[in-house]
């Protein structure tokens, strides 16, 4: 792409001039504790979520090992339940969200031509709260009363029957929420105030757009969740009766408040993935993104709709017909902007000069398998059908399809895509492709059979099940172990790339577009200390 490859040499030289003297990182471990550099903090977030990915993954393997055969073999039911609960909490709040925030930290300033995030010290706090919050959260597993076992949705009255370690869980959730809100405030301030002159909103890369909207969703919904868990806390320890029917409260009300947060939350987990895929597919199709404007509007409409569909999680709680119809139709409406996005990705690839490097493989895998998850979501939106599907493995299959080959694949695609920019070295392409294909085979072996057992009526969150589900569960467990252990390849490839390899050029990819590819590889410690000059023809997305 001739548009972006011209002046890196100037940028390279500048970068090195800066890097070698006073502007480099502080030496030693304290660099990571005290850093306010957006790249350092992005790196911290990404390593943190990689570690949490294996902790959450180990919990998933405990679950799948227990479900390998009917009967109780490995763990007792209480521990099984705290595994399902913790697995969800770790994967949502410890893996997908921090990984996206890490990518935002690394890439947004470089994409909009800013020297750093708007509030660098706040940024340091946002990250360093998280390891402590998760230490508290995970420590409940070793307490007398055990970890949370009532499901990550924390429904009362069940969750209120938990022991005193409940207070630690709520405390940790509050801190995770504070971290997310602070990170989001930082991202909004950065995007509003720090764009290079000439970088108008409609020139921003899709990843920046999706993160701007995600940040708004986070700021608007995490506090609602904080309110809901605070009510649980006071119900449990201070004698209020928000959700206790004995005191005039209503447990169903918790579900309304929770899902008012919870549904936007699932878009928080997927919108940045849309942005990543919208960056990668144009690069390897060597064409600009098809329908950029419609992508922006589709993202905004999905965000808006996410606020008015929450009760589709609650069809079986008993709702007036008008409510069921409203939430059914508004939920189905989300498939329109989502369909626009899938169409645009396919249209971007149409007649492109496509090559299939690892990031592109993961991105295409995302488009196909996310759509599978989207379609089963559409089935779940149909109220009369949902009454059959509710709380079965069909739901488990649905949200794992959108989260694993969806959100997690986008994170892997992003890692491969930007790893040469971060490290200055090319990753091992052969191993990367192996990683993709092995993961893709096993992820489908893992999650596809869950559709079948779900439709046949197997309930979720149980350690034991009827004999007729045995075969598919055994297959799913084989898939789980295959998928889990193949992720060790991912770590190996990352570590190998960090330690060395073929040197990457500034542009890295032939079809790369956008400002982040105009700085050297590895990206200098400080970039765009003076804003880049964007003329009318500059390609920024």
């Amino acid at each position, binding site marked *: 792409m001739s548009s972006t490859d011209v*002046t890196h040499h100037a940028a390279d030289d500048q970068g090195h001039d800066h890097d070698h003297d006073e502007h480099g990182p502080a030496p030693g471990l304290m660099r990571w504790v005290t850093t306010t550099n957006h790249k350092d903090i992005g790196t911290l977030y990404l390593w943190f979520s990689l570690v949490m990915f294996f902790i959450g993954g180990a919990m998933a393997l405990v679950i799948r090992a227990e479900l390998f055969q009917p009967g109780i073999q490995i763990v007792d039911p209480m521990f099984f339940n705290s595994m399902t609960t913790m697995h969800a909490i770790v994967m949502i709040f410890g893996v997908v969200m921090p990984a996206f925030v890490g990518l935002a930290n690394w890439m947004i300033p470089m994409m909009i031509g800013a020297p750093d995030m708007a509030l660098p010290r706040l940024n340091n706090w946002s990250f360093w709260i998280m390891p402590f919050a998760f230490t508290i959260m995970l420590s409940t597993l070793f307490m007398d009363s055990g970890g949370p076992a009532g499901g990550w949705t924390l429904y009362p009255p069940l969750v209120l029957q938990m022991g005193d370690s409940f207070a630690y869980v709520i405390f940790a959730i509050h801190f995770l929420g504070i971290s997310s809100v602070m990170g989001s*405030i930082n991202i909004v301030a950065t995007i509003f105030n720090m764009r290079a002159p000439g970088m108008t909103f409609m020139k921003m890369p899709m990843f920046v757009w999706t993160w701007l909207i995600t940040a708004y969703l986070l700021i*608007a919904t995490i*506090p*609602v969740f904080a309110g809901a868990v605070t009510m649980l806390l006071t119900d449990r320890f201070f004698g209020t*009766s928000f959700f206790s029917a004995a005191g005039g409260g*209503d447990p169903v*009300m918790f579900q309304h408040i929770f899902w008012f947060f919870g549904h936007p939350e699932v878009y928080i987990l997927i919108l940045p993935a849309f942005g990543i895929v919208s960056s990668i597919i144009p690069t390897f199709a060597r064409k600009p993104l098809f329908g950029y404007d419609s992508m922006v509007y589709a993202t905004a409409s999905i965000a808006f709709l996410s606020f008015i569909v929450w009760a589709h999680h609650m069809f079986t709680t008993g709702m007036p017909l008008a409510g069921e119809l409203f939430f059914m139709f508004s939920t189905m409406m989300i498939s329109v902007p989502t369909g626009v996005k899938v169409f645009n990705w396919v249209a971007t690839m149409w007649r492109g000069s496509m090559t299939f490097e690892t990031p592109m493989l993961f991105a295409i895998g995302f488009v196909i398998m996310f759509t599978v998850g989207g379609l089963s979501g559409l089935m779940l939106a149909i109220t009369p059908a949902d009454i059959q599907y509710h709380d079965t493995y069909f739901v488990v299959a649905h949200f794992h399809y959108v989260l694993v080959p969806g959100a997690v694949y986008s994170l892997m695609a992003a890692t491969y895509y930007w790893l040469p920019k971060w490290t200055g070295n090319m990753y091992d392409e052969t191993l990367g492709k192996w990683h993709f294909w092995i993961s893709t085979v096993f992820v489908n072996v893992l999650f596809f059979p869950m559709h079948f057992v779900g439709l046949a009526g197997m309930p979720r969150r149980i350690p034991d099940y009827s004999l007729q589900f045995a075969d598919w569960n055994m297959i799913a467990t084989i898939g789980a172990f295959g998928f889990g252990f193949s992720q060790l390849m991912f770590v190996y490839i990352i570590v190998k790339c960090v330690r060395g390899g073929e040197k990457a050029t500034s542009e890295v990819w032939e079809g790369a577009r956008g400002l982040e590819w105009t700085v050297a590889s590895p990206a200098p410690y400080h970039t765009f200390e003076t804003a880049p000059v964007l003329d009318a023809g500059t390609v920024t997305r």
Partner: protein
Amino acid sequence: MNVETAHAGDASASAVAQSSQVSAVKPKSHLKVAGQMLGLAIGMFGFGYAMVPLYNIICDITGLNGKTGRVSVESVASAQVLDDREVIVEFVSSINQGGSWIFRPEVKTMSVQPGKLYTTSYFAQNLTDEFVVAQATPSVSPFAAAKYFNKTECFCFTRQPFEAQGSKDMPITFIIDEDLPINIDRVTLSYTFFRSPEQGEGADQS
């Protein structure tokens, strides 16, 4: 279509460019944006709590969750009685979390005419050897009938104190509104009996 960094020239030129850039960017206050966002976050925290009264108002209006209404005796006197219509009312009782209670309706079903006032009662006995305060919560099924099922007097309006092994008959006076949809000919009134979480805090709080 080049992308150039502003300080691609010599050092002094870059210094000039830098200062001009800084002055162009500076007026945007990060604190202003961050403050607005923080305000939004705090506002949404408040909204989470505001959902509690909102939820109760919506449930009252729509009869969602089977929440029944309370009416005064005077308004009942003026109600018009429909002689040609009969509705079966079923009475159901349940005890939360296996508490030590006897709790049952005096009659299992009644045949009633919409617009007319009826009285029945539930019997409850505390089987423990301690003083206990209990609270009953009502639910009407089908939900569509809930807003037409009104009570002038009910033991569920207040908390009920029980001595050790104490028992009592607790009356309920109700009226079914004559506007009850014509397709409903059977209404189930269910009470769940809870041991109140805060003991000895006085009876009337609901």
